[in-house]
């Protein structure tokens, strides 16, 4: 089962990566890749429901989780050494799937690393923009539009499920440690990240709703808007249900949030969680 899972993991990873590069080079739509990644994320997270799942299914889905969670950089040992994390997982299901502690940074893995690295990159881009050179200003403006808006917002949206699960897990152990040790520093910084990302996770559906409402009509005509938001505004059809279709992506995020919430805070009611997947 492990070899089958590894093969599927490799195939999915390679297909996503090659398609992503090709579509970016040819300025094509990334909609299909995003659609399949969202589907895989929900599918993999279904195993967090507290029921006894056969071992073969665990092996298969745990391997898939690495692809679905965009866990390309092995950050586990790094965070372990940095923060001296010694907490226990929320339950056995969570441990099997890769949520081995309750700490946000450790659980989110490469996602948090990308988001942390994003800030110094953006600082460099802004510094380039202040340089007294026209071409540098042009490059800075372009990178700002493409990376700041399209890039990071798309990344947050695509990793929304994992971020919300990590936030909810860390919400179960929010105890500040008043000590002068690496462990205390690790716990406290994780709590800080949890608060920040909880705010982001709650704000994302609202932000998506605002962006869609404001820019959906402009996306086809305005090149500046297209450059900024074109990568994450999905082409929706208003033919059948009019503008109400713009709530579709918002509902998608709300659904993931409800799923994460029920999986962690209503663990003792697995039937309720299974029902919430169909929301």
């Amino acid at each position: 089962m492990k070899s089958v899972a590894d093969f599927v993991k490799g195939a999915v990873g390679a297909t996503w990566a090659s398609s992503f590069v090709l579509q970016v080079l040819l300025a094509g739509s990334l909609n299909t890749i995003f659609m399949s990644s969202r589907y895989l994320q929900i599918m993999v997270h279904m195993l967090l429901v507290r029921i006894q799942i056969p071992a073969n299914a665990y092996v298969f889905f745990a391997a898939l989780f690495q692809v679905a969670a965009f866990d390309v950089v092995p950050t586990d040992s790094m965070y372990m050494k940095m923060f001296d994390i010694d907490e226990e997982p929320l339950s056995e299901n969570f441990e099997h799937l890769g949520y081995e502690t309750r700490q946000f940074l450790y659980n989110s893995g490469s996602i948090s690393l990308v988001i942390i690295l994003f800030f110094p990159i953006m600082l460099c881009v802004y510094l380039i923009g202040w340089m007294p050179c026209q071409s540098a200003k042009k490059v800075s403006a372009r990178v700002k539009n493409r990376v700041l808006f399209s890039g990071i917002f798309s990344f947050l949206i695509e990793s929304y499920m994992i971020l919300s699960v990590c936030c909810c897990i860390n919400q179960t152990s929010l105890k500040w440690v008043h000590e002068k040790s690496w462990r205390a520093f690790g716990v406290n910084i994780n709590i800080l990240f949890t608060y920040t990302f909880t705010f982001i996770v709650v704000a994302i559906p609202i932000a998506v709703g605002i962006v869609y409402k404001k820019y959906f009509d402009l996306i086809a005509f305005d090149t500046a808007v297209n450059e900024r938001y074109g990568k994450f505004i999905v082409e929706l059809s208003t033919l059948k249900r009019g503008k109400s279709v713009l709530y579709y992506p918002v509902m998608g995020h709300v659904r993931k949030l409800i799923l994460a919430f029920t999986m962690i805070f209503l663990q003792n009611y697995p039937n309720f969680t299974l029902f919430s997947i169909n929301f």
Partner: protein
Amino acid sequence: MVGQTEPFKTKSGNRMEMFNEFNLLMVNYHLTSLTDWVSDGDTRAVIGISMIAVTMFGILVNVIVILKQQLVASWFAFKKWKHKRAVKERIEELMAVQAKE
């Protein structure tokens, strides 16, 4: 909801979304039967294998759709490049003829 609203512009987008939702529902049914309703170990193992099969089928369809899209995009890019090259060559030919005259 997807069937009623057909939110995506393309037919393939709507179909894919429907297919993915259907697959999720299937896995959900498998998980429902893995609750205390079924206690026999062998049956649970079979349900587990069935769940993996359903997931693999879903992933396979997704991968095929992405690869197909990739091939179509590459083909159009190649055609565009070929057309551009032909036009450029034709212009160069005409300019050479004009220069001779």
